């Protein structure tokens, strides 16, 4: 359950090309799980920028009587993020969260690779902590176009068995992309799950790699959203449900974390013909309706995850309810 709170800026600092914003956000920090996100208002009370900006949660902390704090990482991409980068300590900020479905954690202590592209790496560090608490081996692969766009290399190194770094210009680590080195890591650590967050192209490549090795992937997507809470219907993607049917699902409430094999990556930005409710689907359904005159059973919002071997992060808590 998400809440809307009037929070307060605790700190803002630069990290490479990015900004790390810490906010007092009581009621959000306590319930956030790795992969959850927050949606912030930008521009103040009479702002002409109406739409919320969504950011995955980098980390949370409990801070005594003040309630919890939430950190996000962002780069300046427009007037909204420029406004955020301009915040000072104690400035008020309107926060909604925690939002979305978090990463699903494995029930068994299996080896996992965490793959981050740019500041997309932000939610992976709390995830790494949770995985390690469960006895999972954690390897990191972090990539970016250039060194200053790499996020969390030191932190990743501290909390992992190994870390591989790629930059497209070769300014740090290996020249290339995360998926160039990924097979090597999977083979070396016998990984069972890939967790990824970053640009769509990277997620698609990660999901494909996972399929090639017959292992799981959990991908946190970045889609532009207006509300972040499930009412505006702007952040939809074609995703295959448990019943094998494709639906246009909201990445804010049914994501942002999806099973990599369920997203129709190459068709993101389109409505595939076999999507429930597409023009072609409706045509075909009407034709078969006339033939059979049977009602079409349609179920929306089917859970798209729910693999037996996995435990919902929200149920898992810290006690290892996994067995």
């Amino acid at each position, binding site marked *: *359950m*998400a*809440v*809307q*709170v*009037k*929070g*307060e800026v*605790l700190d803002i600092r630069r990290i490479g090309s990015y900004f790390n914003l810490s906010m*007092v956000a*009581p009621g959000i920090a306590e319930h956030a799980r790795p992969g959850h996100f927050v949606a912030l*208002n930008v521009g103040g009370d009479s702002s*002409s*920028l*109406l*739409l*919320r900006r969504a950011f995955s949660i980098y980390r949370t902390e409990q801070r005594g009587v*003040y*309630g919890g704090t939430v950190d996000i990482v962002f780069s300046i991409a427009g007037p909204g993020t420029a406004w955020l980068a301009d915040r000072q300590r*104690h400035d*008020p900020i*309107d926060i*909604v969260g925690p939002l979305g479905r978090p990463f699903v954690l494995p029930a068994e202590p299996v080896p996992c690779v965490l793959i981050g592209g740019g500041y997309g790496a932000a939610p992976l560090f709390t995830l790494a902590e949770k995985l390690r608490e469960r006895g999972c081996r954690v390897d990191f692969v972090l990539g970016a176009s250039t060194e200053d766009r790499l996020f969390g290399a030191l932190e990743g190194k501290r909390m992992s068995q190994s870390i591989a770094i790629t930059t497209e210009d070769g300014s740090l680590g290996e020249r290339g992309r995360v998926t160039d080195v990924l097979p090597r890591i999977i083979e070396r650590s016998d990984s069972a799950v890939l967790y990824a967050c970053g640009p769509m192209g990277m997620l698609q490549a990660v999901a494909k790699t996972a399929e090639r090795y017959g292992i799981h992937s959990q991908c946190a997507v970045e*889609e*532009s959203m*207006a*509300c972040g*809470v*499930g*009412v*505006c*219907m*702007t*952040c*939809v*993607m074609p995703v295959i449900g448990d019943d094998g049917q494709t*639906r*246009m699902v909201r990445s804010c*409430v049914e994501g942002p974390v999806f099973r990599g094999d369920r997203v129709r990556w190459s068709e*993101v*930005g*389109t*409505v595939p013909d076999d*999507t*429930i*409710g*597409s023009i072609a*689907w*409706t045509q075909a*359904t009407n034709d078969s309706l006339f033939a059979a005159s049977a*009602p*079409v059973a*349609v*179920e*929306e919002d089917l859970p798209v995850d729910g693999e037996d071997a996995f435990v919902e992060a929200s149920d898992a808590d810290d006690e290892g309810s996994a067995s």
Partner: protein
Amino acid sequence: MTRMRLTTKPETEQPLPDIDMSTHLGELPLVNPILTASGCAAAGRELDQFFDITTIGGIVTKSVMQNPRSGRPTPRMAETPSGMLNSIGLQGPGVDSFIERDLAWLHERGATTVVSIAGGSVEEFAKVAGKLRMATGVSGIEVNISCPNVESRGEVFACDPVAAAEVVSAVRRSTTPGVPVFVKLSPDVTDIVSVAHAVVEAGADGLSMINTTLGMVINTDTMRPALAGITGGLSGPAIRPMAVRCVWQVHQAMPEVPILGMGGIRTGLDALEFILAGASAVSIGTVIFHDPSSPARIRDELARAVAERGFASLNDAIGYAHREPDIELEPQGPAFVEFDEALEDSESSADL
């Protein structure tokens, strides 16, 4: 040493005024005049996290059609100054699933529900309304006529008074008597009053104004339209003056017809503008994306604003801006004398 101020304490607010904010949409009584706008609140469930949806006048659900619909490809949205463009394409589960899941939930939750319906033909509108007639929990119908008419080369019903009237009479016939049928008008017409006349003659119990207005954004990086659907509906505070004008014009022409006003309402004072222009209730739309608890906030802000202006009830404020001009002050009134003196003062100081 780190010191933190905590701004997250609930702000100490003035107690709410004891004022009758109840209103009506046709025969439908509402506890207060705040509803959600269709397409901005889904079917209420998501917003119930942020405020108690039974404490506002009602939920107007996202337009539902006969069959499930995937809607358009993305990008479906572009932010614009004080507003946004959207091109969702009426994504929805279809009326059967809507009744079974969404309407049932709203009914159980105890919300007042106005169901927005859409269709590609007169027949589809009538079928959807017919299904809803069999369902429990429908307090009102809002007819979204801003959709393309598949039988008329895709011209939207809202821009064709004859087609709009056909839809309305079909829906009215298919709807339980006593359940008000409101028709949502598009501002993209030359004369909104004539469309209003046409649909009221066809049996509409009231009018919802306004739907989004058609707009377009070009992405200057890709140098192509920003939306996959090329054009989209513009909403938000950017269109508020246009919406107030529409409500004003229609209320002036047909003061007896109830109006549900909407278009860029962000604050209680914005809502009051619509009430003063002649709306009996208002819908909160795009600002919900900005502030998901805004319907509750605006409800309280409006109650204060109405009370502060000395109205005994909300009802007294409806259409108040249409009253006769105030009687002019006599020239020897004290205000006039003061004004004279001030003028002399400024003249003398200018001489110096």
